[in-house]
């Protein structure tokens, strides 16, 4: 079973509400603060991007559905800080120990922000298994769309594509495997492909016979046909 975040193809969400091109980047001040606090905490180096995505996904389905975007971020950040032992539950209650934290020396400084953002966090790696598939080749996405390593764990195979037949469009290189990386099981890099699926392979009532959806899928999500 997938989690509530895996919503591609879901019915019932109503219309999309476009915004003006010049709408504020942050609709509320606290949105900006939530983003900044989350990025600054990421720089402490206690988790990776896959861990933090998983932290948002494992909010209770009820919270995930009712929280706004940055509420999810801040709730997941609080959970992650406790899970990784950076903060205690007492800290969150305002009853924690005083004084500087042992990780304080790793705190992101203003003068290093530009450098850290510009450096990014590339996900491509040397080595790993050789590519098994070539452009044009027919493949099938694994079913079910579950993490094969950890029950209920993080995966980037959306449920809507599970079991569907598609075609390799391109090889992106060898990338960190989120299903492993999110759980501290190592980067386990694998070849990553853009795979195109006919809309008719995914949906009972596609809008147009020529429409397609492309997903980026790791090699172990795919089997040859």
């Amino acid at each position, binding site marked *: 079973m997938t989690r509530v975040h895996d*919503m*591609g*193809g*879901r019915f019932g*969400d109503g*219309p999309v*509400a*476009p915004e003006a*091109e010049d*709408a504020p*980047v942050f609709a509320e*001040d*606290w949105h*900006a*603060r*939530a*983003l900044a*606090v989350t990025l600054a905490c990421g720089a*402490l180096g206690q988790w990776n991007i896959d861990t933090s995505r998983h932290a*948002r996904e494992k909010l209770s389905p009820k919270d995930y559905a009712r929280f706004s*975007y940055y*509420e999810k971020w801040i*709730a997941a*950040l*609080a959970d992650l*800080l406790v899970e990784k032992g950076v*903060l205690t539950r007492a*800290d*969150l*209650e*305002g*009853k924690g*120990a005083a004084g*500087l*934290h042992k*990780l*304080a020396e790793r*705190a*992101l*400084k*203003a003068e290093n*922000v530009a450098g850290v953002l510009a450096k*990014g*966090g*590339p*996900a*491509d790696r040397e080595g790993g298994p050789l590519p098994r598939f070539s452009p044009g080749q027919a493949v099938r996405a694994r079913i079910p769309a579950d993490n094969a390593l950890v029950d209920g764990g993080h995966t*980037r195979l*959306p449920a*809507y594509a599970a079991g569907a037949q598609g075609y390799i469009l391109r090889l*992106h290189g060898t*990338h960190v495997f*989120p299903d492993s990386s999110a759980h501290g099981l190592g980067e386990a890099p694998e070849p990553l492909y853009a795979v195109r699926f006919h809309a008719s392979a995914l*949906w009972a009532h596609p*809008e*147009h016979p020529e*429409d*397609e959806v492309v*997903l980026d*899928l790791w090699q172990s999500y795919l089997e040859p046909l």
Partner: protein
Amino acid sequence: MPGSSCDVQSEAAAPMFCGWTQALGAGQSFFMPHDHHDDHPHALLPPDPALRVKALETILTEKGLIDPAALEEIIDTYQNRIGPQNGARVVARAWSDPDFKAALLADADPVLAELGLYGRQGEHMVVVENTAQQHNMVVCTLCSCYPWPLLGIPPGWYKSDAYRARAVREPRKVLAEFGVTLPESCAVRVWDSTAEVRYLVLPARPEGSESLGEEELAALVTRDSMIGTGLAKVPGEALA
């Protein structure tokens, strides 16, 4: 009794950390988590989102884990410096310079790095070109992946459940909600950003823009046209 431990401890010889309870004025309502039945630690923070962020920020600042000046720097970066104007420059250049466009479509990363447009959430870029036969549109159904160095922080609708749920299944209905109707002869290819690869749509150059220079062309390139939920503006529209 809510708050009592904080009051007592503040009298102690080695004062305990009182964190957000003091910073926020220790109002009674802060002490009653809305979802106390929930064992997720976040439920220990105040339920109001703005207060929740403030509380966590206060705790982290007092422990030296975050630097308020760094927060300001991050916010200023994404509020004022990194945004769709970056992507628009790239698109305008691609419209003006066939060699640049060919290199960008073949392997975007070195081209963008040379322009100083490499960075967080844009480490692995792929640029996809709209043509008369194919319209490209980008979504992240699983979260909110988006090419930050080129487009900045995604707009609210990009992160909305409605867009995430529907863009892959009924892109044409979604496009109609943005005022875009494609001819039957044009196929839609939706890119679901499921990995660390980020996609930028190269919109079609609008008619009537033949005589324009790069700067004027960049003014025709909208954020939505680079996500694929819009088209580039035609010159008269840009002046309006």
